[in-house]
């Protein structure tokens, strides 16, 4: 490698070509549009409500994606469907309205792609609040997302209904902070119930291929 210029050009070209591959992917995925379903008379996916979009920021800022993924793999590849995380695989179109997609890299806790659309085990707002406040298994309690307030007169409507050791002292109530409320609103907005054309045939083809191997 005596020729410095040539060497430099080689380096430059190598990385440029690898980025061109990323741009190729962007060409395929970057301009995905919502899918309009004539039968339902509306387009999918839904845009996130404003409060949920703020909740996604809380989710990102706390680093929830360090333990939870938001990507369901195709049937036959892992136990994602049998665990009830989603009936179909996640596809790129699911994420087009998300400013910060939280695909995640670790499953220390369950996948949350479809946490609100799960049947029959989807948690409601109250369950989620209690889970956040007390923690469970490997999930730490996120008590810092809640305020202990002194009850004067009526108990606040948003107060958590806690029993046992988690219950606050007499005369006090645990109320979710705004962060907790937006976070829960975000989790309740996560559902991938709608079946896109691209998520359907791949599922069948994959299931078919799995069967053929066995």
């Amino acid at each position, binding site marked *: 490698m005596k020729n410095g210029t040539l060497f430099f050009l080689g*380096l430059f070209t190598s990385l440029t070509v690898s980025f061109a591959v990323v741009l190729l*992917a962007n060409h395929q995925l*970057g301009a995905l549009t919502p899918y309009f379903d004539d039968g339902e008379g509306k387009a999918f996916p839904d845009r996130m409500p404003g409060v949920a979009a703020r909740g996604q920021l809380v989710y990102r800022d706390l680093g929830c994606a360090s333990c939870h993924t938001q990507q369901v793999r195709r049937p036959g590849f892992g*136990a994602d469907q049998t665990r009830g995380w989603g009936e179909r695989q996640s596809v790129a179109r699911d*994420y087009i309205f998300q400013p910060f997609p939280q695909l995640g890299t670790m499953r220390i806790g*369950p996948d949350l792609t479809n946490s609100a659309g799960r049947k029959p085990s989807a948690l409601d707002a109250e369950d989620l609040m209690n889970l956040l406040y007390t923690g469970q298994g*490997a999930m730490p309690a996120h008590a810092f997302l809640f305020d202990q307030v002194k009850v004067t007169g009526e108990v606040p409507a948003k107060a958590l209904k806690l029993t046992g050791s988690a219950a606050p002292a007499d005369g006090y109530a645990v109320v979710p902070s705004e962060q907790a409320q937006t976070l829960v609103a975000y989790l309740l907005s996560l559902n991938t119930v709608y079946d896109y054309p691209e998520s359907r045939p791949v599922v069948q083809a994959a299931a078919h291929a799995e069967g053929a191997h066995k």
Partner: protein
Amino acid sequence: MSHDTQEVSSNDAHARGPLLFLLGSGLVWLVISGVLALIASVQLHTPGFLASCAWFTYGHMQALQETAFVYGWLANAGLALGLWVLTRLGGEALRAGNWVTVGALFWNLGVTLALVGIMAGDATGHSLLQLPRYVQPLLLIAYGAIAVAGVLAWSGRRNETSYASQWYVFAALFLFPWLFSVAQVALFVMPMRGVMQAVTAGWFAQGVFTLWLAPLALAAAYYVVPKVTGRVLPAYQSASLAFWVLIVVGAWTGGRHLIGGPVPAWIPSLAIVSCSLLVFHYFVVWMNLKGALGQGGAVMKLTSFGLLAYVIGGCADALTSIRGFAVITQFTYFTQAQQQLALYGGVSMLFFGALYFAVPRLTGKAWASAALIGGHATTAIFGVLMLVISLGVAGWTQGQALLKPAVTFPEIAAATRPWLLLASAAYTVLLLGNLMLVVNFLQTLAAKSTVPTATLFQATSDIKETA
């Protein structure tokens, strides 16, 4: 080459200040990242640990330890060793040393700001790119200032022919800012939509390893191994091919974490093929540097461990990128084990080896304590082995359990807990070892140089026999 006459070079004196500053700050980050990694590891088996404050969530601690390790320790140490190798092989004194010092100052300021930012909740959420977006331009400029010295050392080299070490350093110096600036634009300035962010972040994260950290580590190894063994590297004529395979194919492996993910199948498929192609690179590196194995002395022990970890880690990446393995290891601690094997076992250990070789030559003083060198080398090797094995077993257990829908998450946590406790013990061992290195480094800097230069490297050969 007769290295007795070349061991003490006046060129090293010029490089002393800036490069020791880089190395020293790297070591501070190494200890800080060790503490953070220990906290994060404890949180995995004891979720209540430091859980009462938003600043200390596991997500934050994980991002913090990774950032401190990669951008604090590996970047500082890698740049110092890389510049040192370039000036030594170039045969000229380090030029633009002031640029290095100022660049290093701002780089470390940037990393400090990044850590505070991550604690406050500004991490980006992308693996190996957790740096809050507002410190990224600062880091890029600081890196540029440091790299000026490298470019001058390359262009001003005395010999037209160049060595493998020089290619690797120069590639790392140039390719990182390219990667980093493009990633900043594509992810933060004009963010790509939806899953494209994950694809781009994967491209960047693989590039950070294959085009920046691994080349810096290899540069150090390609320099130190022939120096210590005193032999020509076997199969050296293939080294350039191994270099180009790494550079050309390296960043194509970015999609391997998206296997089964919400992207078209060609993206992970391309990554799987690229991972397999890289095995050729690992094979040639192994052929070139295997002479390090079986040599005495801390420098060669650490280097040969690093070499083994680098090669095994590369093969493990190729293996686990195959879908049959990925279905088990994906999203588990196994991926953390692989990352630690590559970054700690591979890159960091090669840096340790080269650091023990470089510091006496840079300072003109022998290492203050041979016992601390031996202690650090032993704890580092033992700690990395323990860490990678415990995380690997934990990950495999977790992966198998995730495939069985009947096993609940609290059950998985209980099954992996013993191994995660072992991982915390490993982090403790590593932290203690790294403290030994820092103490030894500081004592060496503080010591008065009373040894005549002729007998300066006697201490190193003593270490060879004792350690």
